[in-house]
């Protein structure tokens, strides 16, 4: 019986060549995904501003202002995770696996810390302030929709980073071929940058 096999000589070179040829395409595809996600957030943010400016002051009567102090701390935690993620990739590029793993774990822990902070804030709003998604008008709807959507992205990002860490431990990536780690870093930076916008519009403006 004839069995199709890859030629042993030059097989690695073919794989390397294929990686080089498709890396930019995959990068462009991933950037398009991030741009489409950016459009999604932008449409919700514009809708939020439209509703906010058509109402009678902000926050609406009966709802207290959000706690900026706690949100600032939570923001610093998320922004810090962006910095650790960047250094994780840099250490991978320089072949320093231990430092890469340390920064990667720090990023995951900080991401979980941010999610914990968001859960705490939600609990405070719902239990103490009685602000809910459906029962507090456009304020509750816009706040929980936008921050919830962002929180969902952070949750997905934490799972994504954990998978990337496992993959790198199992040797899926090399010093030369690490597109997955680049995509993970891009995604995490994107999540950070979206929070810069959300933090500013909900807590500061």
């Amino acid at each position: 019986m004839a069995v199709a096999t890859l030629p042993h000589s030059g097989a690695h070179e073919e794989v390397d060549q294929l990686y080089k040829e498709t890396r930019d395409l995959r990068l462009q595809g991933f950037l398009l995904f991030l741009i489409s996600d950016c459009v999604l957030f932008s449409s919700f943010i514009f809708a939020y501003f439209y509703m906010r400016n058509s109402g009678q002051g902000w926050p609406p009567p009966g709802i207290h202002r959000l706690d900026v102090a706690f949100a600032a701390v939570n923001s610093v935690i998320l922004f810090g995770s962006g910095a650790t993620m960047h250094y994780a990739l840099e250490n991978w590029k320089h072949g320093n696996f231990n430092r890469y793993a340390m920064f990667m774990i720090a990023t995951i822990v900080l991401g979980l810390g941010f999610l914990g902070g968001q859960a705490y804030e939600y609990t405070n709003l719902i239990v103490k302030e009685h602000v809910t998604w459906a029962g507090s008008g456009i304020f509750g709807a816009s706040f929980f929709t936008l921050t919830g959507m962002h929180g969902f992205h952070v949750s997905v990002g934490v799972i994504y980073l954990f998978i990337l860490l496992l993959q790198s431990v199992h040797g899926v990536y090399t010093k030369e071929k690490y597109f997955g780690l680049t995509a993970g870093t891009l995604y995490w930076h994107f999540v950070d940058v979206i929070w810069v916008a959300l933090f500013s519009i909900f807590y500061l403006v």
Partner: protein
Amino acid sequence: MNLVATEHLIAIVGGIIVAVVSAIALKNDWNATGIDNQVFKLMLGLLCLGALIAIGAGAGFLGNFGQGAA
């Protein structure tokens, strides 16, 4: 030191650390080429801006710091 003052301090100190670290990373990557590195530079710049905003919020320059949700 009460909880709010601690939050002030963490926001300011943490914001300074993140701003400095991201600015250093941006400086180190400044001459890097390629689409991914260009995006990284943009993201690091915005990350630095975010950290500065957090410092501003922590220091009370921005937002309604201190009024809280009470």
